[in-house]
């Protein structure tokens, strides 16, 4: 017996990479799967019926149940159609997994509005576009699972990804809100920040290197401090799937509103960005008091992730600052 026997799942971006691994494991665990993927390139261009159909065919050939969908989640009407496919084929929707995403890496000062809009449209609006119709069904059923994909690029920050990082952090925030909107109806909403070797991460080192070279910089890595080891190497995309399948199962009925890092055999719960260190004063702070509190308490031993270069003349560092009082 599978962990997802009889469940109906919609998985966006499941023609390739992490999404495909999830679709295949879900089917192995007994779920009926709508494999959604318009088959676009990493930058969102083009389109190909191949990937979604191929994953659906593989599942059916292995004795499972699946149908392919080519709808783009960036389009509200298409996303509604996608959710409708689960209903039309199997009469219900138990699980929604939002994996679909594209990349348009660029330093902020060179990022075009088109590059901003395209990335926000697929990741963030795409998540809203699928979750809203899914939430209507799940609320009626008094049961459901929503699993979104976030990223370390937004949760911690990454160079050249203002659009992608904003979208992925927004998805984490949205996950926390939707957990609170839907929890009382027996629905859970969680997010995954994956580490995996896929088409998307192959492009990251390349584009990051290009951006850094253009800026005359040394290589910059995401600083996870003591957690660095967990993300030092990227492993097969299939490794992400078991945690997603667990969150989708009945056993995870009370796990709600969390973000989980999954990379290879490592699974971690992310810190909520709640208060880590606090200073308190009765009444209004003065600037000299804040200078002392921020430098010596709040930020003690916490580095600047991108300090000013030596050849930049920094007021306060290289030239005297006006006194604060």
């Amino acid at each position: 017996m599978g962990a997802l026997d009889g469940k109906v799942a919609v998985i966006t971006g499941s023609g390739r990479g992490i999404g495909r691994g999830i679709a295949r494991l879900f089917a192995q665990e007994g779920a009926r799967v709508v494999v959604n993927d318009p088959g676009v390139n990493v930058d969102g261009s083009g389109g190909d019926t191949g990937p979604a159909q191929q994953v659906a065919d593989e599942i059916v050939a292995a004795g499972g149940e699946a149908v392919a969908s080519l709808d783009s989640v960036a389009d509200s009407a298409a996303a509604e159609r996608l959710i409708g496919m689960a209903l039309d084929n199997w009469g219900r929707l138990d699980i929604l997994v939002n994996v679909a995403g594209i990349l348009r890496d660029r330093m902020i000062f060179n990022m075009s509005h088109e590059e901003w809009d395209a990335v926000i449209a697929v990741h963030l609006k795409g998540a809203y576009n699928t979750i809203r119709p899914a939430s209507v069904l799940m609320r009626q059923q008094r049961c459901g699972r929503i699993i979104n994909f976030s990223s370390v690029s937004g949760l911690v920050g990454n160079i050249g990804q203002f659009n992608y990082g904003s979208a992925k952090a927004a998805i984490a925030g949205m996950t926390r809100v939707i957990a609170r909107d839907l929890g009382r109806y027996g629905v859970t909403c969680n997010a995954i920040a994956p580490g995996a070797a896929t088409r998307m991460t192959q492009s990251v080192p390349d584009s990051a290197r290009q951006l850094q070279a253009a800026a005359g910089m040394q290589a910059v890595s995401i600083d996870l401090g003591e957690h660095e080891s967990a993300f030092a190497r990227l492993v097969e995309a299939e490794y992400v799937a078991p945690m997603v399948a667990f969150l989708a199962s009945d056993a995870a009925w009370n796990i709600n509103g969390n973000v989980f890092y999954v990379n290879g055999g490592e699974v971690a719960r992310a810190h909520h960005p709640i208060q880590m260190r606090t200073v308190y004063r009765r009444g209004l702070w003065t600037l000299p008091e804040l200078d002392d509190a921020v430098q010596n308490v709040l930020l003690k031993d916490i580095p600047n992730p991108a300090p000013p270069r030596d050849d930049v003349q920094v007021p306060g560092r290289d030239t005297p600052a006006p006194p604060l009082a």
Partner: protein
Amino acid sequence: MAQPLADRCIVITGAGRGIGAEVARFTGSLGARVLVNDPGVNIDGSGGDAGPAQSVANEIVAAGGTAAANLDSIATEAGGENLIRQCLDTWGRVDGVVHVAGILRDRMIFNMSPQEWDDVIAVHLTGYFNLAKPASVIMRQQRFGRVIAFSSSSGLMGNAGQANYGAAKAGIAGGVRCLARDLGRYGITSNGIAPTAGTRMTQSIPEAAPLASGAVARAEEIEPPFPEARFVAPMVAYLLTDQAWNVNGKIFHVAGGQVSLAYEEVPDRSIAKAGMWTVDELRAVVPEQLMSGVINPAPPPPTLDLPGRPATP
């Protein structure tokens, strides 16, 4: 003696009322030249009024400071570009931008219309891009700048009925962290503020929250009446000073006299296995190890017949 923000040219969105107005007045009193941006809309983004921005600018000038008003909407690409151009044309530089502007369209996710989603994302999140993009071009040339954006505990911790606002505000926190890494080496800092203050926007919460969230408590422990908006201004002003040159990529919660550094959303607790987990193994270890002591913020009521939940004796 020079004032702490003497001659710094600062653009503040949403500065006609509430927290933005307090930041404008305070930075103006510290010697900054302030471009007060506010289209004077209602909380839901409707309407428009030249009064709020102009009156805050007038107050700063009457108090001996330097200020000008701008009525552009930061939700548009042209609005962001006009704002930065006006600051450049008027004073010749842009030393700091502070993105406070925001609207609310609270609704439970299953009832939220695409318009309600789009309008809130446009002002808060795309507004941040619309402001930061042209500002970053100038600041990179200057090899100096401060970018400060307003996040919210609604997105950082979660609040029912605010999927649009919470997503936008958490997205801003992610943007703050990315911007810090894009611009830090040029002598620019990027930080975020998650404020708690009594303003026109929080006045709407006691009405909206019971409707939207039932018995769910707000994430922050501070209950209404919220601390006054003016308490937020000193921390924003500090981040604009030269002394704060190395404070970068951080999110600060500010509530009254309480100032906190927020956790980065790094791994907290973890489990590891050499090889691929099975669903059965995760079922055995996740609830007891990874999730031990972590509560469900909105648990299903006991009356709900829920697959997987052990029967209560």
